[in-house]
Structure formats: C-alpha cells, structure tokens
C-alpha cells in the first residue's frame, strides 16, 4: 500500500511524494494474481483471434470445431503449465482467506450447499486438461463472486467439490486450481 501524506495549502489539498512504502501482502498477492490471469487472458485472445471468426448464430459443428481448436492451441502454447502457475502459493492462501471471509460473514451452510449442490464425487483435476463433460458446473453464489478477485471475461471460477478451479469456458480448459479452498465445516 502506498502511503501518501496530504498537506492542506491555502484551502486545497496537495499530495506530496510518498513518505514511505508499506507492503500489504494480500494486495500484493492479488496484484500478482491479476497479472498472471491477464497474461492468460491475453494468450487466449491472441489465439482466438487467429482462429476463423465465430458467429453468434453458429451450428453445433462450428461451435465444437472452434472450441476444440481453441483448446488445442492453448494447451500447446502452455505445454509446460502446472498447478500453481496462476494460483501461486501466496495467491492460494489469499483466495482461501477471501472465501473463508465470505463464509464467516454469510450463511456457511447455505453457501456450501449452493456450491456443492450437484457434486458428483471425486474428479481428477489436471491443469491444461479438458473440464470433464459429465461433471455439471457448480453454482457460484453471487456473494462469493463479489468477494473474489474480478476476472477477465474469458475465465471464471468454478468449484468441483472443495477445489476452486480457474476455468476457461470457451476452451473447456482447466487453467489452474486451488485444492481445499473451502473452510472446514
């Protein structure tokens, strides 16, 4: 966090140069997360722009072809991607803390029920792999979305059990994940 000293001079406020710089670890982690997510989003957009244009009134064949082409190209471009590339260890800690905070302020059980409404049991989650076709998407409570860091349009948060996934829905791709992201019961 940048600390700024305000001095009132002749009725108007003037900001002087920073007197000192203090580091808020959570803000720093969130800034780091944003940078990594933005980098992923830029990659997604760059690859998508290189593919044939996608109509808003497409046939299922066109949709499927586009989605698979996008996924293949992103996977190839991130061939060495691994868990923790986006949700780094400090970011994971921050995300868990934000989720725990939402749970603490809200109705824990209602939130958990909403998230795990259609949980189908353990699913193998792997970075850079396709989100399983047979696993329904978990609902994300609005309250939680308001408290988690804002995401660019091309990615979204989803839960599978208590694992928080960063999902690229356009490519059906798991970008990264945070295991054990929900607070204990």
């Amino acid at each position, binding site marked *: 966090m940048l600390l700024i000293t305000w001095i009132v001079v002749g009725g108007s406020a003037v900001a002087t140069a920073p007197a000192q710089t203090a580091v808020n670890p959570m803000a720093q982690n969130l800034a780091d997360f944003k940078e990594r997510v933005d980098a992923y989003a830029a990659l997604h957009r760059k690859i998508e722009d290189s593919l044939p244009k996608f109509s*808003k009134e497409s046939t*299922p064949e066109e949709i*499927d072809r586009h989605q698979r082409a996008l996924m293949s190209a992103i996977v190839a471009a991130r061939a060495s991607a691994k868990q923790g590339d986006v949700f780094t260890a400090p970011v994971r800690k921050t995300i868990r803390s934000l989720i725990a905070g939402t749970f603490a302020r809200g109705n824990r059980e209602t939130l958990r029920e909403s998230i795990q409404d259609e949980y189908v049991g353990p699913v193998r989650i792997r970075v850079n792999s396709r989100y399983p*076709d047979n696993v329904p998407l978990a*609902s994300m409570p609005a309250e939680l*979305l308001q408290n988690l860091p804002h995401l660019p349009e091309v990615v979204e948060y989803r839960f599978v059990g208590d694992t928080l996934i960063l999902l690229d*829905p356009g490519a059906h791709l798991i970008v990264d994940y945070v295991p054990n992201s929900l607070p204990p019961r």
Partner: protein
Amino acid sequence: MRHTHLLSSLALALSLTGCQSLSAGEAVATVTTVQAPSAAQPIALPNAPDSLKFCVLGDFGTGSKQQYQLAAQMAELHKTFPFEMCTLVGDNLYGRQRSQDFQKKFEIPYKPLLDAEVKFYASLGNHDTREQRFYKLFNMDGKLYYSFKAPKQDVRFFALETTYPVPEQIKWLEEELMKSREKWKIAYFHHPLYSSAGRHGSDLQLRETLEPLFTKYGVNVVFTGHDHIYERIKPQNGIAYFVAGSGGQLRTGDGRRPAPFSDRIVDSSRVFMVAEISGDRMVFNAVNQLGNIVDSGVVVRQELSSATGQSGGERR
C-alpha cells in the same frame, strides 16, 4: 384428459402470501392466481387470436425416449394451440455436447416445432456449456443473459444465467428492469428461488440476490427448473413462481414433502407448460407426456397503487 378446453368459470381466487410492505413507487404490479378446483377440471386456454402464446420447458436434453414422448405432446398441442415461442429454463443438453448431441437432444425431438417456426429462447443450466449461447436455434445472440420484448402483447422476458451470477449481470438486470415499460415482466432461469424438491430445493443465496430486484421493479412471473419436478408456488411477494424442471428428466417422488409455500406439485410425470397472455391475464396449463393437464390456472396482473404499496397490507 386431452387438451379439451373445457371451462372458464371454475375460478378459485387465492390470496397472496408472504407479502412485504413496500414504499411508494417501489413495486408497479403484482399478481393473484386463480386455479382450477382440480386437475380433472382444468382452466381452458382461451386461444385468442391476438394473445401471446408460449411454452416453458426445462431440464429436457437427455435424448431419452421419455423426452421424445413429451416433445411429441408439445407438437400435438401446437396443432390446436399454436404457441409462437418457447422459453427454456436450462439444462438444455445433458452430458456430451457434440454436434450429434444437439441433434439427438434438441433438433430431432422438437423438429415439428422448429419446422413450424416456433422460436426457442434459451437460458443456461449447470449442465450446459456456455458456448450454447452461440447456437443459432437458442436465439441467445451470443449472450449469457438477455432480455427481449415478446412478439405480441405488452410483455418483456428476462433470461438470466444463474450458475454464475456475476455482479455485472445483477447490475445489468437492475438497469433492464428499471427501463422496462412493459406491463408484464417475466424472468426465467435455471435455479429455483422456491422449490419443495428434496434433491435441490430453494436456492436461498440466489433468492437473496434476485428477489429484491423482482419485487422492486414489478416482475410478475418467474419460471425456473433444476429440480426435476413441476411445482407451482403460492405467490411470493406478489410474484408467481413456477418450477418446470421435468421436461426430460424426472425425479419421481422428490416432491413428497411440500413446503408451506407450495401450491401444486407433480413429481410422477414429465411436464411442460403452455401459457397465454392477453391483457392482464396469463392462463397456464401444465401438460404431461400423456397429454393430460396436470395443473392449470390464471395469473392476474394488477397495478399496485402507491396507496396500496404504502399500506404494507396484503396485496391481491
């Protein structure tokens, strides 16, 4: 009983429940429902020439024989009650969503309706890929949430995406509702704000988010799915709620414990809804795979005067 348009005078007015006090100018309309005394004596669809006729379907895209049976009843009813559009409350395709799945789970079963130029307006459920918004026959124009004015009558529909209700969507909804001047405001989406079903039940988180906007801006009717039953809810805060989540899936017996807010549950057969709006009345029928009318009634829209709003009394 087949689609015999029997009678129109078997009305039993129901009082509203669960009303909240309102400030002047907050809500602009409210509803009462009139229901048939029994499923054996359904309220007829007027089938008026200038009315808006539409159907409601949810949780249907299984590709199963049962989905096809219900689809056949929809096509049969369409011959005598030519609804021009159909709102989809999500879970449009289960499992894989390849091109052949779009055919098997949507295009083939509803071919007679598609051939008759019935327009389907989809919302997405938790089993739906988000790319469905680009599918031409779902008329979503590439949007996850959208609103549109009905081709007839003074009606606006609001299709919402409730598995991922980002703050932008809630803001958008409020703006859309605020500027909507239509007499009827109908919202539809996947997760029910009220449901008696044992499997999922009411989504309380979503209710906290959406219902204040619905009451503030006078939404009249809400259609949802997710639970694989049919349920009509007693009007809540001046809004008629329906769960129509058995368009292909069915969870038999899941409505065995009706909540106090429940008015009618069908959990033993698959159901779609048809409705007709003319002026301030919306007549609805819920029809099962045998063509039987399993529920019917009328939603009557009423202007809510400021005086009534300020009284905080029961709205009718």
